[in-house]
C-alpha cells in the first residue's frame, strides 16, 4: 500500500481530521492515526477500505489511476472555483439615515448631496449585467440606505424586467428597514423582490449599534419584519448579524431577537476586521473570544432544535457545505481563488465598478490606489491589472500556512482583508483574522459533526435545507 498526500488537524474530541487535495476527508482516532502514519494502514479493515476509497492510500497496482483521479479532482475543483458566476450589486445611494458607530460601508449623511446614482446610468448598468453573464441573475441593492431612493430601486427593477426578462432575475434589497412602508410592500408583492436586513440583537443591543436620531431602529425593524412576514412570506426576508462586543456577552440575545421577530434562520459572523469597520478599540475582540461566544450560541441553537424549534445558523451551514458537498462554491467569501470579481460585480453610485463590496470600501480608505475596473461606460475587467494580481495571489493551495492546513480545500482567501491589515494580499496566516476565524469554525463544527450524532443530524438538515 502507498500513502497519498494529505493534511491533518486535531479536533477537540481527540479525533484527527484528514483531508486531501481532491476534497475527501476522514476522521481517525489517535491510535488509528498513529498506525496509519507508521504503516499506511490501520488495524481496522473497514477503515482501511474507506481510506483507500477516499484516496488517502492506494494499492500499488492502481497507483497511477489513483494519482490521475487526485489530479482530475483538483483540476475540476480549481476550474469550478474559477468560474465567473457573479452576484451583481448596485449602490443607488451612499446616504444613510443611520449613523452606526461601526458602519461596515462608508456612508454619507442622509441630507448630503452628490452621493446618489445618476438615473440615466441604470439602463447601462442593466445592459452590462446582461452582457456579463447568462441568467439567472441575482441583483443586490446595497447602500447607504437604499430605501432613501426607492425611485431608483423601482427603475432598476423595471429595467431588469425589460432587459433581463421576468423570471430570470431576483432583486435583494439590503436595508435597515427603517424606511419601509406599505407602498413598498405592495410594490414588492408580485415582484421577485427580497429583503436582507441587519439584526444585531434584541432592542438594547441593536439600538446601541444601529443609531438613528429617533433611537428606535429596533422597533422600526420589528414592525417592518412583521409586515413582510404577514404580507410577503418568510422566504422574502433574511437577516445578517454582525457580532459586536455588546452581543459577545449575550449570545442568547440574538436568538431571542430572531424568535421575537418570527425568523428561524440567522446568519451570524464576526465584525469585519477591515480598518474602516471598527474605528474604536472598544469594538475589537479576538477570534478566541468570538469562538467562545459562538460555541454558546451554537449550543443554544442546537438545544432549541432538539426541543422542536428549527433554528438554522447559516455560517455553520456554509462552512460544512464546503466540506461535505463536492463543488459547493456559491459563497463568495469562502472560496479560493477569492470570489473577488469572479463572484461579485459592484456598480457604485458614482458609476465606478468594483469587484466586491470590500474593494469599494478599501477605495474610500486607500485613496491613492485605483481599486475599480473603471466606470460603467468604459468597463474593462482586465484594464486594471490589480484584480488579476489579487485573484492570482488568492490561490490558498500554495500559500505558506495553508499548504499544510487540513481545511485548505474548503477554505477561502481574502486578499483585500490582508491588504487592509498587512499591506499585502497573501498575509501572514498566523496573524490573519480570516485564517483564525475560518480555521476555528471548521475545527469546531467538524468536531461537533463527528463527535455528536444528534447534532450531526441537525447540521445535515442545515446543509440540505
Amino acid at each position, binding site marked *: 500500500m502507498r500513502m497519498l498526500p494529505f493534511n491533518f488537524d486535531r479536533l477537540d474530541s481527540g479525533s484527527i481530521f484528514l483531508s486531501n487535495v*481532491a*476534497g*475527501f476527508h476522514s476522521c481517525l482516532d489517535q491510535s488509528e492515526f498513529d498506525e496509519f502514519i507508521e504503516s499506511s494502514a490501520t488495524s481496522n479493515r*473497514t477503515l482501511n*477500505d*474507506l481510506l*483507500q*476509497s*477516499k*484516496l488517502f492510500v*492506494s*494499492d500499488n*497496482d*492502481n497507483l*497511477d*489511476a*489513483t494519482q*490521475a*483521479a*487526485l489530479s*482530475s*479532482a483538483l*483540476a*475540476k*475543483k480549481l476550474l469550478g472555483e474559477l468560474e465567473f458566476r457573479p452576484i451583481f450589486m448596485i449602490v443607488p445611494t451612499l446616504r444613510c439615515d443611520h449613523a452606526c458607530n461601526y458602519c461596515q460601508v462608508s456612508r454619507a449623511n442622509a441630507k448630503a448631496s452628490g452621493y446618489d446614482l445618476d438615473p440615466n446610468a441604470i439602463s447601462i448598468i442593466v445592459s452590462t449585467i446582461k452582457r456579463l453573464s447568462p441568467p439567472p441573475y441575482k441583483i443586490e441593492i446595497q447602500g447607504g440606505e437604499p430605501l432613501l431612493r426607492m425611485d431608483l430601486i423601482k427603475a432598476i427593477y423595471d429595467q431588469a424586467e425589460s432587459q433581463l426578462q421576468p423570471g430570470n432575475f431576483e432583486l435583494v434589497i439590503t436595508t435597515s428597514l427603517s424606511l419601509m412602508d406599505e407602498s413598498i410592500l405592495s410594490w414588492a408583492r408580485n415582484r421577485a423582490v427580497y429583503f436582507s436586513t441587519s439584526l444585531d440583537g434584541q432592542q438594547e443591543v441593536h439600538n446601541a449599534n444601529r443609531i438613528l436620531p429617533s433611537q428606535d431602529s429596533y422597533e422600526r425593524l420589528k414592525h417592518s419584519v412583521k409586515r413582510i412576514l404577514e404580507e410577503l412570506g418568510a422566504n422574502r426576508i433574511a437577516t445578517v448579524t454582525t457580532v459586536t462586543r455588546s452581543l459577545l456577552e449575550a449570545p442568547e440575545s440574538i436568538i431571542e431577537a430572531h424568535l421575537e421577530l418570527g425568523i428561524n434562520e440567522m446568519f451570524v459572523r464576526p465584525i469585519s476586521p477591515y480598518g474602516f469597520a471598527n474605528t474604536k478599540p472598544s469594538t475589537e475582540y479576538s477570534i478566541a473570544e468570538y469562538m467562545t461566544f459562538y460555541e454558546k450560541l451554537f449550543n443554544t441553537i442546537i438545544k432549541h432544535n432538539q426541543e422542536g424549534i428549527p433554528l438554522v445558523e447559516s455560517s455553520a451551514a456554509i462552512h460544512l457545505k464546503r466540506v*461535505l*458537498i*463536492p*463543488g459547493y462554491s456559491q459563497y463568495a467569501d469562502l472560496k479560493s481563488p477569492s470570489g473577488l470579481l469572479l463572484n461579485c460585480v459592484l456598480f457604485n453610485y458614482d458609476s465606478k465598478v468594483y469587484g466586491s463590496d470590500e474593494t469599494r470600501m478599501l477605495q474610500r480608505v486607500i485613496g491613492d490606489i485605483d481599486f475599480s475596473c473603471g466606470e460603467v461606460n468604459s468597463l474593462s475587467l482586465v484594464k486594471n491589472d490589480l484584480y488579476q494580481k489579487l485573484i492570482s495571489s488568492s490561490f490558498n493551495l500554495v500559500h505558506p500556512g495553508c499548504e499544510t492546513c487540513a481545511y485548505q480545500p474548503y477554505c477561502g482567501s481574502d486578499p483585500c482583508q490582508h491588504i487592509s491589515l498587512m499591506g499585502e494580499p497573501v498575509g501572514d496566516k498566523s496573524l490573519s483574522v480570516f485564517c483564525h476565524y475560518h480555521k476555528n469554525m471548521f475545527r469546531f463544527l467538524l468536531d461537533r459533526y463527528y463527535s455528536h450524532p444528534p447534532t450531526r443530524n441537525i447540521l445535515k438538515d442545515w*446543509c*440540505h435545507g
Partner: protein
Amino acid sequence: MVETIRKDVFQLPPENPIAAGHYLLRTTVPDSSNHYLNQILIKDDVYSPKPNSQCITGVVRSSGLLGNISDGDIGVVNANGTLRVILSRNANHNTVLVTERCNNRCLFCSQPPKERDDDHLLVQAGLAIAAFQSDDIIGISGGEPLLYREKFLRFLDFVILHAPSTSLHILSNGRAFSDTGFASEIAKRCQDTSITFGIPLYSILGSNHDRLVGAHGAYRDTINGLINAGNLGIPIELRIIPTQQNYKDISTIVEFSSRCLSNIVQVSIMNLEPTGWAKNSWHNLYLSPSSYLDDLRNGIEAAIEASLPVCLFNFPLCHIPEDLWPYAVQSISDWKNYYPNECSQCQLKSKCPGYFTSSRGKFHHPPRRIEQCVNGT
C-alpha cells in the same frame, strides 16, 4: 410460460420460408425500397395474394406477429424459422447487440461473452438502425462494444450520417477510453449526435472492482477511461450494481464520481438481474435491498448532495421503502419484464418496475404487501 409485457420472438409459419437475415417489417405495402435492409410484408392469416411490389422480398402470414409489431420494426429471421423483433416502435427500450466479445468477465454478466470474431454484428446493427429511422434512443450493448475500436468509430459515423435523429446509449466498461486518442475520437462524435455511455464502476477499491469484473487491470483502465471521457466532454451514465461484495461501496463510488469525474449525467444503481452468469453464483452475489438500505440511502444522499441525478433500476417498489420510491424507475426492457399474479391487485403496479422474467423459480423474491396500496387490506 410467463406473460412478458411485450412478446418478441415468433415462430414463422412453415410455408413460404424466409431466408435468414435482418429485415424491415412492413404492415403496409411500401412504395419505395429501403436500401438498408430487405423488407417483408406481415399479413394476417386470411389468404391474400402477394402484392405486386418490387420492394417486398417476402410475405409472412401470421396474425400473432402482425398484432405485435408496427410498420417499420426490424426483425431477425434465424435459420430455424423464428423471427425476433430487435427494434420495435412499441418497445419501451430498444437495444442492439453489436458484439459478444468482451475483455471483462463480470461474475454477473447477463450476456456471457464468446471469443469468436463477430464484427459483422456492427455492420448489421448500423444497417438495422439506419433502416429503423427512429428519433428515439437506441441502446447499444455487448460484449464490449468498444473492443472493435476503429470499426466502432465507423459504425458511429454510419449511424450519424444515416440515422441523424437517433440518439445512442452505449453500454461499455469504459476501458477503451484509457487510450486518450481513442477517447478524443469518440468525443468528437458526441458533438454530432446525442450519445451517452453507460459505464459501470463497482468499487473504488481496485481489487474489488477487478474481482467483480473478473479481469486484473480493469479498474485501472476504467478509472483512467472515466477520467478521460469526462474531461473530454463525453456524457456518462455511471452504473453501480450492488452485490454482497460491494454494497458498502455505493456512497464512496458516488463521492468519487462527484469529486474526481466530470460529465456524469446520471448515477444508476441497479438491482442484480438473475440471468447469464449471475445465476451460477447468485447466492454469493445477490443481496436483498432490505439488507443494505442504509448503504443505498447514503449513496442516494451523496448523489443528491453533489447534484448528480440518481436512479434506482430494477427494484420492485415493494422491495424498497417508500422514501426511495421517487428514485425507482421503470427500467426493465419489456420483452423480459413481467408482474407476478400477486401484483394484479397492487395500485402501484403502473408505477412499478416489476420483475425480470428470469427471476422466476429459485431466483424469485416474491412481492410483498404494501399495506396502504393493496386493495382490500
